[in-house]
């Protein structure tokens, strides 16, 4: 929150003062939205962490939210995986977002979704993995913990997009975002950051990432 607070300002100017609540920012990937980056504790999607997305309804903007970061990863020749997406991701739309389709791999089977995600993360070869668990069965906290550990192994973020209406397990994730139908993103939980606040997702607040211009 950027309320000009005189005390905060005074304290931040002193460099001989150690403040326990501030933690060192981890490694993060830019989300492609400056407004969101500012709110996230690490200044972007934390690497090697599990990020949970809770869309109010499917197709409310979760892919739009991820695409700038995923496109940036593929431009750096990193592999991106979509695991068990419920619908067909439109290639024209992905290309328009700047994704290199040769770097995108889609696992269509729902059955081995978590196994595949774990394998990909553990290999350390993937830039990011996005998983859409089946809406009909609840995701167990054991699965979530395994994914979290695999993400740490592979040093890549794993995005878990819960099916609308499903109840996610008690969170271990470092970041949990809800996406509202109105297009607002609400930070439900963020480890080491502020836990409140919502940001409006709008096509206007997408900023082109550093290397995006290189393709043109």
């Amino acid at each position, binding site marked *: 929150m950027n309320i000009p607070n005189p005390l905060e300002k005074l304290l931040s100017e002193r460099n001989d003062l150690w403040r326990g609540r501030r933690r060192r920012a981890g490694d993060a990937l830019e989300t492609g939205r400056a407004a969101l980056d500012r709110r996230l504790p690490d200044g972007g999607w934390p690497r090697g962490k599990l990020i949970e997305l809770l869309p109010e309804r499917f197709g409310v903007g979760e*892919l739009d939210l991820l695409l700038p970061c995923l496109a940036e990863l593929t431009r750096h020749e990193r592999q991106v995986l979509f695991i068990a997406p419920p*619908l067909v991701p439109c290639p024209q739309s992905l290309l328009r977002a700047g994704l290199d389709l040769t770097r995108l791999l889609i696992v269509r089977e729902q059955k081995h979704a978590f196994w595949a995600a774990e*394998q990909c993360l553990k290999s350390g070869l993937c830039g990011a993995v996005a998983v859409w668990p089946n809406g009909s069965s609840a995701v167990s906290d054991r699965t979530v913990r395994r994914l979290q550990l695999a993400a740490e192994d592979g040093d890549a973020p794993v995005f878990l997009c819960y099916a609308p209406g499903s109840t996610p397990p008690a969170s271990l994730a470092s970041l949990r975002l809800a996406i509202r*139908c109105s297009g607002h993103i609400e930070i439900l939980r963020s480890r080491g950051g502020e836990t409140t606040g919502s940001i409006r997702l709008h096509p206007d607040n997408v900023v082109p990432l550093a290397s995006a211009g290189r393709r043109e």
Partner: protein
Amino acid sequence: MPAGALWTGIVCPQGALQAALRLLPGTTASTTPLAVHDTVSGRTRVIEINRTARSLGVQPGQVLADALAIAPDLESLTRNRGAETRLFEELALVAYRYSHQVAITGDGVVLETGGSRRLHGDLDAMLNTLGDEISAMGLHARLGTAPVPAAACLLARTGQHVTEARALHRVLSTWPLHRLALAPAESRKLEGLGLKSVREVLALPRFERERRLGRTLNRYLDQIHGREQTPLVYWQPPEKFCQTLELPVPTVRSEALVFALNRVLEHLHQWLRVRDRALSGIEVELLPEDRGPKIEFSAGLGQPGFQRDRLLEILRLKLESIRLHSAIESLRLRAESTAEQRPPQADLWTGTNVNDAWPALIDRLTARIGENGLCSIAPCPDHRPEKAWKWTPPGTTTADTDAPPRPNWLLPEPRPCRAGELRLVDGPERIESGWWDGQDCRRDYWTAHDRHGNRVWVFREYKPRDGWFVHGLFG
């Protein structure tokens, strides 16, 4: 006898027992009395036994019923001649890497080592590496060297090495007769004459031996002394790899199948090395006991090569996904697709081969998920949105096509909807015709909000059906 020629014989003591045991997982423990039996002149007799069985009093040549009476715990296996042949072929494959003159004899393999002696430094070093390689295959074998192939096989039984003809003659003359590979009828005749050692037989005049004992004995003696060429049929590694394996016990357990497949993979590895090929895919057939339909599956490798652990993992994943209804009796493994061997190139600085890891991951995923489960997506040059995309093999896609804005998600098939629930926002985009493939259409696409407030991609179709359909979702 050409100068410098030197032959090495490899024999497997108790070849029948070793061949049978190779296919049984977990029976290497020497505490179980084991035997191999065969039908000899109408009766089932024990032919080879292990040490534990011998300590219990079982003797080779005993009738199986007697042996079982002496040692009720005795586990006796039927002699598997196919497995024995395969065992010799495996030995021959290893030997082929040391010499192009390799022949399979009755109880082992003989190879010419004189020519490759210099390459390996000296004979001892070469025989040591050969011996190590054979023991790494889990086989117990003995090596012997002589200037003559027929004598090399005999010397191998006792592990003796003789490099000169004169020394060979000296060694042979000290031998008792039973150490020669004589036909039973011949040895009985010689025994009847009161002859016990090779020296005594050689002391007889040549024509006398021929008159009394036939021409074959003379020829054999000439062959082992190097006075006559030993006829050998040189063995060549097969052009294509295909191996059938009968399991000793029909099984439904996938671990037992993996164990057997591992044995075949070992053989395949040797074959690939000899043929200098890289593996790109294998096909496996499982033949059930009750003559039911055979189960076939294949495993492809993203990048040609051979890594036993990786292949074994792929096969294990494949087997896990197959439900076996009846016990598997035998299995066949074929390596039809091979490619030229290209040594892997490692990164100059780190020495790790990253390029190899990605195909390995893809192989592992496809083995479990299936060929269709893992793919990339590509745009297609077609104006009809349902034909403008296709699934492609992992990592492949087609070039960028200029297309008007499309939603992020497409429904696999357009779904009918009610127009009353929609609030049209943007459009229309007319998409028409397709008479060339019989799927003519005329539609108007709109961006709309449905009653939940979702942004959807809908179309009004005029031809061939009439009505409103949802085709995609933004977001």
